[in-house]
């Protein structure tokens, strides 16, 4: 009974259904090949890594009542920076240099986040418009970096972060897991989560309770930028090239959707990391399923619409009460009858 009442029950159920469909349509769901796991489930987990990362950052931003539209552009910038630098390397397979370059790219992304955070918290611009600036200009910057071309790299170590395997599991998946664990620890083992929720719940009350709301706000945008940068690296490593136009295009929408499916309200306050992860994987699985069951491209969007409608209705307690309520007697009424 209580599990049915959980907000995340229905998204989880839909995810399971999608995975079952995939298990049936694909020839290998999970198998072992060349000493590592392989199959459509693994593809989904690996493919969802960038979205999970972006959505994680987005969750924190949304928890403070903000929004970050610039994540896609930051992904493009980070991929562009990394590929440009790597392509200039004498030896693209040098692990040290590649790692350093990735750090540089993430550093740039953190700066982008700092920019957003400053506009929102210090100058006081509404988050949607503050991050829109970088959303528009950022992709231009990425295009400048790559000169509008796709920069190819042939770096084994770089490709590893997207397509490599470690302990039989995809590295991208492991990175996402690490990020989830990190954020979970950071928000739930320290007081950060509480302070975030407090700022999102009521900025005025938080300030008067002595919380440095501005500092926290800046911080979440920086974190969001950093994760977007990491996601951009995985995205570009996956195709061994920097595609500054396509990278992260419209990912902000998916990320926000993932956060909302995960039960975090857009007005801020309480947030759920687990929910976000569930939402992100669900979105990825949905995309894969559409292809796997061969929905014709002119009906793809309609199909997605139906799923999203079903999802958002299933998450509404009011809807569930109306639809399922008729079949079960309300506990409250029963209690009264016996009283």
């Amino acid at each position, binding site marked *: 009974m209580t599990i049915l009442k959980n907000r995340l029950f229905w998204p989880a159920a839909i995810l399971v259904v999608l995975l079952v469909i995939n298990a049936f349509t694909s020839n290998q769901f999970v198998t072992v090949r060349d000493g590592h796991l392989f199959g459509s489930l693994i593809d989904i987990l690996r493919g969802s890594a960038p979205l999970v990362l972006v959505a994680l950052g987005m969750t924190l931003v949304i928890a403070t009542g903000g929004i970050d539209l610039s994540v896609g552009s930051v992904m493009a910038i980070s991929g562009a920076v990394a590929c440009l630098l790597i392509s200039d390397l004498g030896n693209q397979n040098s692990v040290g240099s590649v790692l350093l370059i990735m750090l540089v790219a993430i550093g740039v992304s953190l700066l982008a986040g700092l920019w957003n955070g400053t506009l929102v918290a210090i100058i006081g*611009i509404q988050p949607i418009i503050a991050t829109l600036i970088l959303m528009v200009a950022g992709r*231009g910057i990425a295009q400048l970096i790559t000169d509008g071309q796709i920069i190819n790299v042939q770096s084994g170590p770089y490709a590893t972060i997207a397509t490599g395997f470690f302990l039989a599991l995809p590295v991208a998946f492991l990175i996402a897991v690490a990020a989830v664990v990190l954020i979970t620890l950071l928000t739930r083992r320290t007081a950060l989560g509480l302070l975030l929720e407090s700022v999102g719940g009521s900025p005025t009350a938080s300030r008067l309770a002595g919380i440095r709301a501005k500092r926290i706000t800046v911080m979440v945008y920086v974190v969001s930028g950093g994760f977007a940068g990491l996601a951009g690296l995985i995205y570009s490593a996956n195709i061994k090239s920097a595609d500054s136009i396509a990278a992260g295009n419209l990912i902000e929408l998916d990320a926000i959707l993932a956060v909302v499916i995960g039960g975090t309200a857009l007005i801020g306050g309480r947030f759920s990391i687990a929910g976000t992860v569930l939402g992100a994987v669900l979105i990825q699985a949905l995309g894969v399923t559409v292809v796997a069951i061969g929905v014709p491209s*002119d009906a793809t969007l*309609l199909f997605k619409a139906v799923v999203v409608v079903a999802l958002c209705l299933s998450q*509404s307690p009011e809807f569930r009460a109306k639809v399922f309520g008729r079949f079960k007697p309300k506990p409250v009424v029963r209690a009264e009858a016996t009283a």
Partner: protein
Amino acid sequence: MMTTVDVTPETGGKKGSPVNPRSRVYRPNAKYIPILATLALLVIMYSAGVANYENFGQPSVIVNLFRDNAVLLVVTVGMTFVILTGGIDLSVGAVISMTTTLTATLLQGGWPPLVVLVLVLLLGSLLGAGQGAVIHFFKVEPFIATLAGLFLARGIALFINQASIPIRDETWKAISEYRIPLADGVVTKPVALVAIAAVLIAAAVLAWTRFGRNVYAIGGSADSALLMGLPVGRTRIAVYTLSGFCAALGGVLFSINSTSGWALQGNGLELDAIAACVIGGVLLTGGSGYVFGALLGVLVTGLIQTIIIFQGDLNAAWTRIIVGVLLFAFIVLQRLVTRKVK
């Protein structure tokens, strides 16, 4: 005037508080400061354009601004209502695509133009009403409900036809080609007038009707509005219906503008509309802002675009960067000006 039991002290002193230098004269203006600041910055931006580019000063630049942004303007008007209640409507761009595709398909199929017009406007409103109902009754977040609406509307459009469909209907063409001369060599088209009419009507509705004031109240605090006995549900659904209607009307204007329908039309327009509202000083959390502000927001984005076109030597990358820079400069200046004056 009132006889009371207690010896109440003289309270007349409250009136003209000597310590309160906040002059009464400034007060009524205070709420218009963001709009005035935006307007002033808009004028500055325009003057900069005139100073820098040949032919920028021609009246047709301004006239075209209204005409080229007619669709965005109409959609933004609807969006303003939604945002004022503290909601958001992501489906508008998709409703446009659905409307244009349907209009073109039906007209191609020989349906009478008037029937088509009424039908598509009805359909847009209906979709909006549906979203509003889901948001109100099932307490689904506006963002996710209208995102589903976006998928649905564009899904329908793509399902009807993926390719672009020309409109060869005489009425549509006639309206499309009808010119309204304003001055020597300056003409505008009916779409611009429709857009301006939409702005004026919306401004009047917001300022002078109960519905309009309820919209503000809900945006201020929906819970309080409910406790004050305002028709919160009805208003909220009406607002999304209105936005759906405006989007459909925008779609019709689009189909007139381009005499065609296409399932990818209006892609991303929702963001433009939201941005225009915000630039115009409408608070995304609801309860504060004006349609005229939204109008200014549309003009700002339109003017930025015009400047970019007149600049003429920017490739895609620089176009994006300059748009971002101009947007940034504008927003920050606006912010600083309003803060100073306050």
